[in-house]
């Protein structure tokens, strides 16, 4: 019994001594990333641009475009060309993906109200036209008549960011703004934006 007690005492002393080693590191486990939106919170892998942001932003933009008079009350479906978005954030992204999803959403939800022109396929289209003009392939209409449509509007956007990184963590704010530009007048007939802020703190082992 005495032996047991003395062992416990020795262990307690060792524990006390070793306890002196800890001087305390703040948030040693890190703080999981939190999406700083007023209506929702979620756990994500980074503070950058992620798929849930893409979905939320493009859904909002597609709904917003459909409501403007130039689209809703247009005499005939206007032709729209996508112009690549500008990335002014610190996150390298696939810039086409935002406009591709807006295009898909508009085509899905408002088929016929707008028509997108495949300008990114012009090289292939022109090659096909040349083949028709030279008689190498058949044509259902006169290939010498220009039927490539001109754009009524350009849909484009810009991603801008602001970053803070300190010992307390990393904070990233991204402003997504999109606009519809009248190709004839250069007037911006529609503009909308969405903003997302995220913060996180990585594990102390990486700080």
């Amino acid at each position, binding site marked *: 019994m005495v032996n047991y007690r003395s062992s416990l005492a020795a262990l307690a002393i060792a524990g006390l001594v070793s306890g002196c080693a800890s001087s305390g590191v703040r948030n040693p486990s890190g703080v999981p990333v939190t999406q700083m939106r007023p209506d929702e919170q979620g756990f994500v892998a980074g503070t950058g641009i992620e798929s849930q942001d893409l979905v939320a932003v493009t859904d909002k933009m597609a709904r917003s475009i459909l409501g403007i008079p130039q689209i809703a009350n247009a005499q005939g479906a206007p032709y729209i060309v996508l112009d690549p978005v500008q990335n002014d954030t610190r996150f390298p992204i696939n*810039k086409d993906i935002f406009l591709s999803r807006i295009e898909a959403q508009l085509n899905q939800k408002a088929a016929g109200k707008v028509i997108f022109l495949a300008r990114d396929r012009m090289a292939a289209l022109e090659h096909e036209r040349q083949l028709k003009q030279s008689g190498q392939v058949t044509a259902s209409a006169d290939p010498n008549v220009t039927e490539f449509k001109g754009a009524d509007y350009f849909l484009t956007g810009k991603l801008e960011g602001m970053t803070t990184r300190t010992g307390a963590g990393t904070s990233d704010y991204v402003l997504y703004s999109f606009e519809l530009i009248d190709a004839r007048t250069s007037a911006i007939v529609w503009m909308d934006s969405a903003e997302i802020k995220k913060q996180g703190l990585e594990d102390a082992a990486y700080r």
Partner: protein
Amino acid sequence: MTGCVTRTTIVPLTGNIMVDGPMMITNGPPRDKVLWEYRTAAAAMRRGEFQLAKQYLDDALLTLGGISTDKSARLARSYFHPESTKAFIGEPYERVMAYYYRGILYWMDGEPDNARACFRSAAIQDADAENHEYSADYVLLDYLDGLATTKLAGDGSDAFKRAEKEARQAKPPPYDAGANVLFFLEFGLGPFKYATGQYREELRFSIRPSPVHSAEVEVDGQNIPAGPYDDLYFQATTRGGRVMDHILANKAVFKTSTDVAGNVGIIGGAVAAVQRDRTSQEVGLGLIAAGVLSKIVSAATMPAADTRTWDNLPRYLSFAAIQLPPGQHAATIEFRDAAGNILPHLTKTVAFNVPSDGKDKVVFVSDRSSTPQTL
């Protein structure tokens, strides 16, 4: 204690990074995957295998770009695992270089805005230095941020002013928005890590001697000097202490304390155990047992710092830009020592085609690049 032993896979290395890298990425310890991706990507860039470099860097940046709170990091903080248990993402200067290389590759692909994004992310990696004077102080990252902005019809003047202010060695030239051929140059041998302290718990950086101190690009009869804008050794050694350094120091104190407590227990117990009194003998044996236990705990404590190093980085980063007409050109890149003498065995030649679509031609050259190269 034997239950804590982790089995490790030993993969034999050949010394050829283009063989070892892919092998270690596939078969090596997962915690070293990013390290080998970094090394292989740098080697691939010097061989002109830019698609391969892109593939490795993209995968590495998936890990680096997140907020790391994984289990391996928790283990690395624990008393009984070394720091090198954590998945490697590198010290800030290594993380910076991963983004920097990826930025060069984006620019090469005609995406200066994504290149700029990488340079900005690189700068952020260096933003939380303990000594604020040295936070985000890479000259080239700000200079290239501003150059990309200028080329994208924006205002890069603020970034240029930051770059000028941060320049400690060569001063970057004013932007030439018409310059359509961009030379990204690097030379010298990068920093390596070692550990000091009783238990090798203190992370330190050192440098291997390298004769190269500057470079010069000769193309179409024009000579463009390219001084060292950034020094990775300077960057590695001016950040101040890490949070992890405090954790390792605590581990070292714990290791010492439990060792001392063990010695006290064993010696005190031995003294008591030789007494004739039966009670003293029992107490003595108990103390010896506790002492041995404490010694075992001490022996199992691992305060060693992580010295895994991205070991094929350069020391100096440089850059030059020039305006050239579309078509074929050949450039000669000469590297010079501290006295300005050419080191002829390091001279590189690169043949490249300047596109007629207005996009920039990006040429990456290291003093360790293979030569000649055709881009």
